[in-house]
């Protein structure tokens, strides 16, 4: 598929998905202050980035991973060639059209400057945006909510899932909505007698009352945005569980409700210490639905995809050398993924250090040549149009910019 026909397909798909009986917000014109969207997908557990964006041009890759390397493009179960040096895991074939349309980019050897190999600390740093500093009270997406111009409603920043992630926690209101079938369904609190009685119990200004009030407001917004979508989904076969269905809910919400600007979702199951697999197997089984979900997001957003940047990241990478059990242990540098209308796509960005023994971090890991914050800062600056001064509030102690890195188009 060439670029033009892909865009045509995307356009058609977008139009086809527009709700027929306009829900309350679908007819609202986009708010210029929330028009630029950001979606962050955090892969908790440290995805093996070297098997996602495979450096098939580096002989060391095959030497150090004799039984878990992804074969070269053209071979059986081989990688999908990206640029003649890197190739994509074959389970992510669904993303190929986005790559060809220059809507998908990667930054290889990205990550945190902090050396920790603890999942939990490393995730914490990625969510607080302050590597090495555990006392930071809020998440960087919450600080972003407090910095963006315009009116912030509780659904300006949303997370999918039953808990509020660190990245969106802080003084600004944010909402989590149920993943799976629960999203956008009426609850017992929608019955006026019950709703009013509980509203009286939660009318204070304390933390819990605030959460209750924000939740109810957000629930009304989400319900009216998803009503059509859910009805349509219920008519067909039961929706697939997991990320692809959550992704299409998220897309519908962002397309229908112009107030939603930032969204977050976390996916687990990447900690492949044993039996990682190659083209098939454990990692592949997790990558395939992730790829499908990202495609659902892109398609479901329809025209809004042009104004959206999707970032996929993970707390650190995994050892270059496979371990004793056809798996990989905790490493350092990893790959970041970027999707969206204005992403400088069709390119693997970042400085590739190579996998020679003497180039590895502590003799075992892919080094970090791009600080994850510089990528996020560029998205905030060039896509969300944040000024330098405001940027410093979101990522204090931001390292000097990498002059050549350009992940968002001019």
């Amino acid at each position, binding site marked *: 598929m060439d670029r033009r026909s892909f865009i045509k397909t995307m356009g058609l798909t977008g139009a086809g998905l527009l709700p027929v009986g306009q829900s309350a917000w679908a007819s609202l014109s986009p708010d210029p202050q929330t028009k630029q969207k950001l979606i962050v997908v955090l892969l908790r557990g440290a995805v093996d980035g070297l098997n996602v964006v495979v450096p098939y041009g580096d002989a060391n890759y095959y030497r150090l991973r004799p039984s878990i390397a992804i074969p070269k493009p053209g071979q059986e179960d081989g990688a999908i060639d990206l640029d003649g040096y890197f190739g994509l895991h074959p389970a992510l074939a669904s993303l190929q059209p986005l790559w060809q349309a220059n809507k998908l980019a990667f930054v290889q050897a990205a990550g945190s400057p902090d050396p920790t190999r603890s999942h939990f600390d490393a995730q914490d740093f990625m969510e607080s945006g302050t590597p090495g500093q555990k006392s930071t009270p809020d998440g960087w997406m919450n600080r972003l909510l407090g910095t963006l111009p315009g009116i912030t409603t509780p659904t300006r920043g949303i997370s999918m899932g039953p808990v509020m992630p660190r990245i969106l926690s802080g003084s600004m209101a944010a909402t989590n909505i149920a993943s799976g079938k629960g999203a956008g369904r009426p609850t017992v609190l929608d019955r006026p007698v019950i709703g009013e009685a509980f509203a009286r*119990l939660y009318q204070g200004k304390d933390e819990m009352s605030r959460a209750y009030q924000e939740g109810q407001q957000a629930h009304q917004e989400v319900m009216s945005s998803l009503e059509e979508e859910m009805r349509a989904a219920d008519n067909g076969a039961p929706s697939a569980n997991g990320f692809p269905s959550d992704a299409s809910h998220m897309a519908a919400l962002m397309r229908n409700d112009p107030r939603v600007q930032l969204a977050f979702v976390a996916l687990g199951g990447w900690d492949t210490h044993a039996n990682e697999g190659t083209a098939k197997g454990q990692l592949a089984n997790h990558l395939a639905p992730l790829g499908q979900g990202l495609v659902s997001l892109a398609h479901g957003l329809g025209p809004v995809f042009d104004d959206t940047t999707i970032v996929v990241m993970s707390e650190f990478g995994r050892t270059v050398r496979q371990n004793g059990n056809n798996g990989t242990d905790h490493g350092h540098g990893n790959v970041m993924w970027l999707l969206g209308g204005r992403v400088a796509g069709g390119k693997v960005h970042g400085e590739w250090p190579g996998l020679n023994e003497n180039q590895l971090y502590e003799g075992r890991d892919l080094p970090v040549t791009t600080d994850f914050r510089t990528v996020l800062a560029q998205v905030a600056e060039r896509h969300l149009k944040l000024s330098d001064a405001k940027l410093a509030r979101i990522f204090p102690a931001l390292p000097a910019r990498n002059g050549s890195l350009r992940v968002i188009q001019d």
Partner: protein
Amino acid sequence: MKHFTGLLVGALFCSFVGPLWASGLSTEQRQLHVLNRIAYGPSAVDIARINEVGVDRYIDEQLHPERIPLPQSLARQLDDLFAINKSTGDMIAEFREAEREAKQNPEQGKQERRQLVVQIAEQTATARLSRAIYSPRQLEEVMVDFWFNHFNVFEGKGLDRVLVSAYERDAIRPYVFGRFRDLLGATAKHPAMLFYLDNWLSTAPGFQSPIRINAKQKAGGLNENYARELMELHTLGVDGGYTQKDVTELARILTGWTFDPRDGMFRFVDRRHDQGVKDCLGSHVTSNGQAEGEYALDTLAKAPATARHISFQLAQYFVSDQPSQSLVDRLTRRFTESDGNIREVLDTLLHSPEFLDPVNYAKKFKTPYQYLVSTLRTSDVQVVNYRPLLGTLRQLGMPLYGAQTPDGYKNTEAAWLNPDALSRRINFATALAAGRLPLSSMPDPNGDGRPEQMNSRRTISAPRETQDVQKSFVALDANTLGKTMNGLLSSQTRAAIADADPRLRAALMLGSPDFMRH
């Protein structure tokens, strides 16, 4: 003598801080606080007990659960659950047999294998929840939750589907008040942990296994997974001062710690063990087989960082999301002086001024598990069918035995208070109060009016309570509930409830902000 000195110091300390309590919490508040924190909230039975014996003796009783008899009804119910009573070996054998059947006869066999796994999961969870709700040994159940979570394994990973039950029974329960080193050793050697964090596959570099376990699983070198979490989560804590080199060296020390996949028994296999010299945490460890690992566990259990880490976690769990440094210091000293005696550390904690300090009263936000169990205790519902409760825990983000990552679940307000959670808790409370949850009888899949057997494959009878219980949707009585809950509710909440439709009052109590905290 040591004990006597401890008592003396304790007595002096108590008499010094005694007046502070007296001026702080009322007697009723003290009782409720104790029931909220060392039990899963007040039940009518426990309120009566603590009223009778007083706070101090109640705490003392709870620290010695072996002296509290289990009610016969609960003991019988637990006896009926094969998943918690069969040996690890039998469970594995049964699972392997189901796997063989599934291979030979895919259509029916796969279905049966799935049923077996579902049954095991349901029974394991039924046992845990029924004890949490109905056992008078409440602190024991609280500590099972605490330690299981500390040494978390995930039920959804492969063989752990059939091992989790034995893990809780054999590696956690016997040690919840015991020596930390024993608990650490029991978890380190249990197949559920060896499997979950991959140590069972970790070997000396270049080891060639004479038997292939299956096509995918290869044991042919080091795996760092367990060694890292052992230091980061189980003992020293992430800031406990170890390095990547220590992780690798500890993993080498623990090579050969595995289990026999046929019977689930721990084995140290010398052929798999890395015989080289290791340098770990400042110790030079020469080749000495299994004793190297035992020595490493001794060292980790005795490390000051471990005492601090465990003390902080206990203080956070029982006292406050941000416990004071002085409390953590005191617990750390007790931990070290008592050689990791958990009962003594708890004794110090529960008699500390911080524990009953009014600033900590009703301040902790309940985890979904604590919330759910407390609603059932306070409302005195006789649960037969636990499925709706398990579904609720899943929806609330805390599936029982379902924490995927080794850090388990957090117990802080920051982790659990969010808009969706409150709405879901209220939905649950409303359904429970209206009697709309099918808790009192098992679902009826055949439509023949007979309750489903918990175990259709085996000769286990359905829980006795189901025999004469009809499907009855009985709403909770707000007046009865009010008697148990009254002390927990603020005057504003009580006023709002008094003004509300009487049919909503029970739901409002259970879904009130006051009941979200403990």
